[in-house]
């Protein structure tokens, strides 16, 4: 069964495709839009994108399994991505990851039972001046400590 794209997303996808000299080059932006629509990229969505861009489904699968920001699995409403690279670990990222593991009672890669939070560790986010840092969905949070993490998580409903 083909997944239903909203009219708005269909329009956006059409517009995005028109920016490229070749249709298949728009694969990443189209996948970003598709993931935004469904929350993740189920196989049916991969097939729909392949059809739209007139490429083989395997080409879409190759991309989805290569890029860390594209997900075949559902994530929680808030995807907490804590940087575990060098600058952040010098400034205590590991302790913060442990704190989040205990607080949310999940390991990195897992989602809470209520589907509210997914916890991941990621490589450098490019915000080392504010280390330790994390990204929740698309928002950056820096200069983290336990207290700040508490207040950030409390502000998310």
């Amino acid at each position, binding site marked *: 069964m083909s997944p239903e794209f909203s009219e708005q997303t269909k329009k956006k996808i059409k517009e995005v495709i028109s*920016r*490229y*000299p*070749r249709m*298949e*080059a*728009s*694969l*990443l*932006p189209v*996948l*970003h839009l598709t993931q935004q629509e469904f929350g993740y990229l189920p196989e049916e969505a991969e097939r729909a994108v392949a059809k739209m*861009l007139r*490429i083989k489904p395997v*080409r879409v699968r*190759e*991309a989805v399994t*290569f*890029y*860390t*920001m*594209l997900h075949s699995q559902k994530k929680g409403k808030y995807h907490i991505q804590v940087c*575990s*690279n*060098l*600058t952040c*670990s*010098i*400034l205590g990222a590991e302790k913060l990851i442990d704190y989040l593991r205990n607080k949310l009672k999940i390991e990195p890669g897992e989602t809470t039972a209520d589907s509210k939070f997914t916890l991941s560790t990621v*490589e*450098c*986010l*490019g*915000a*080392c*001046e*504010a*280390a330790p840092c994390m*990204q929740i969905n*698309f*928002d*950056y949070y820096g200069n983290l400590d336990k207290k700040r993490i508490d207040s950030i998580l409390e502000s998310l409903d």
Partner: protein
Amino acid sequence: MKEKILTKNFGLKNSFKIDVYLEKKGYTAVRKALKEMTPEQILDEVKKANLRGRGGAGFPAGVKWSFVPDVDKPKYLCANADEGEPGTFKDRYIMAHDPHLLIEGVIITCFCVGIHHAFIYIRGEYEAVALRLEQAISEAYEKGFLGKNILKTGFKLDITVHRGAGAYICGEETGLLESLEGKRGYPRLKPPFPASIGLFQCPTVINNVETLSNVPAIILKGADWFCQQGLPGDGGTRIFGVSGMVKNPGIYELPVGTSLRDIIFKHAGGMKEGKTLKAVIPGGMSAPILRADEIDLKMDFDSLVEAKSMLGSAAIIVIDEETPILEVLKAVAKFYSHESCGQCTPCRIGTSWINKIVKRLVQGKGEQEDLKAILRLANNILGKTLCPLGDAAAMPISSIVEKFNDELESSLIQ
């Protein structure tokens, strides 16, 4: 007093808006380039300026442009905004605070090389920055700096912002091209170089965001002036990104050739909370590590090569005595084993074996042979891969094991 080239507008209110940029004489370089100069004159000026690539490799931008052949095919520019090198965040500042500076550099470069479609390949995580860039680009279209008939000169140019999706390898120029074509970011065998066969098999220029952002100043003030801001063979300023155990982490735009010690101790305020300096990674994670007694160095490409390290993206990571060197090694090994694209066997297998050994060291189960094995594996990656990621993994890992051998040995099973 030397001038700021790249960060001069950062403190202004709404510095990212075109009205503010125009008020600060923005887009006058585009006017000059398109109306008063020929593409050849622009190329000469940029060549003379010795503008070396700010992404890491340091290749002279003007020379790169001159490699583009005059063929009957479309040509493309890709601004590399992937910024995945750990420790690096300078391009994010340029795009967020002064996106029109980048756009102006892109327009002049495209006019010089005869390009009518440019892409800005920005890492996927920078979504907010990508939106800001898109807003800036629409402003530039509205004011006639982009589109079909720029400043009524007949020159046409479109810019497309393209978001990546999380892969360090896409900062490598041919990995970037593959990714932009809608594929996995597997680097290509070179030659052919992208200048002749690049995006969609067409001639393509790939320059880092900071490199392109220097072009307007070179056009307005000339190559001689630009060289005076830095060194004769390595012109201009660099945006040094300082992070780690320093008082004031952040970006510092300083002349090429500024002393590493001064950047850390004068500009970034010195060590945090009275900590002692242990080591510095001077040019992003790929750069071989320097001990605390090795930082009396000029920060330019050639001086760092002489010191057997690398200026790279000028991202300076400061490490204090209390941080175990094993923790540094762990972060480096983990990163490259995660980011190796998997195409070349030495890198795919080598980085993952090194990572496994380092994990064992961290658990206190390391044996004498392990350090030698790490060096052997690193040496078997070095120079044996399609793209520079292999070297970028091998060099810092070897340097950490060699320079901090005593400390690492003390963590082994005796």
